[in-house]
């Protein structure tokens, strides 16, 4: 059967990786034509790292970059955090694929609609 490989990566696996490991894994897999769905998503700092590294790998007629869509981060302001006077950011589900094959049709706060082409 022909098709596009879709890998769903769990929050646990992502938690066990460093930022650079995550970014490297994403770029390697996407460059191999895979589409990744990250259960937890990337921190804002990891997102900028990914953009930066993607730019260094863009080459004419070979790789034009990535399509990445994630829900906006949520403020994790639970009671304990409020008492401690701090808020942390909670990242959310993220879809990443080759720009040549994955195209976002519509995105809202809680919905990502995308088109995948072979």
């Amino acid at each position, binding site marked *: 059967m022909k098709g596009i490989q879709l890998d769903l990566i769990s929050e646990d696996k992502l938690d066990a990786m460093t930022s650079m490991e995550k970014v490297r894994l994403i770029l390697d897999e996407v460059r191999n034509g895979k589409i990744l769905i990250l259960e937890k998503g990337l*921190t*804002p*700092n990891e*997102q*900028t790292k*990914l*953009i*930066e590294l*993607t*730019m*260094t790998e*863009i080459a*004419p007629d070979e790789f*034009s*970059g*990535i*399509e*990445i*869509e*994630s829900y*906006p*981060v949520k*403020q994790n302001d639970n009671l304990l955090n409020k008492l401690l006077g701090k808020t942390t*950011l909670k990242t959310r589900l993220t879809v990443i694929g080759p*720009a*040549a094959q994955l195209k976002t049709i*519509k*995105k*809202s*706060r809680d919905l990502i609609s995308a088109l995948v082409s072979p």
Partner: protein
Amino acid sequence: MGIIKRLGINFSWLKRIFKKKRARIGIYGPPNAGKTTLANRIVRDWTGDAMGSVSQIPHETRRARRRQGVTIESNGSSVTLDIVDTPGLATKIDFHDFMVFGLSEEESKRRAKEATEGVIEAVKWLDDLDGVILVMDATEDPYTQVNVTVIGNMEARKLPLLIAANKIDLPNSSPSRIHSAFPQHPIVPISALEGQNIELLYQEIAEHFG
């Protein structure tokens, strides 16, 4: 600190000494959102100069440009800023997209290469800023990855962010869509091209970055 407060000692003079002389503000956004048009308007209004050229072809700005010491006055208060106009952020750059605008293949490839370097430069500048004006095209879907990434970065760094919902001179613009997407941040609907609401933007700049 509580004791100092109770004693009524005023340390505002100390704050003035250690306060940064002027804030460094980056103008960010996706390609063709109107960043350089806005930078030109601000700099022209307050210094009489311009910052860079604008074009319909995406990634016209491929190097960050800094203008130092721009003093903005509004409602009796004034703020002096270093303004950094950054190249448009993107996650993909395909040279074929430039050929649609009539550029040759060679020119398009060169532009694409420079654009990738520009994106890296824009990302690097995030580490050296005191605040950001995020320019969004009010005719487009606001939930783009570029917008989400810039906002997430500023929230993580706890730095001030002002959203300029640009292109309200166009009939299909919808600044309210941007407001409902990012209600936690101040939004000013503007037309950088025609100058609509630009005074309101200066008020917000003076308030948030002063």
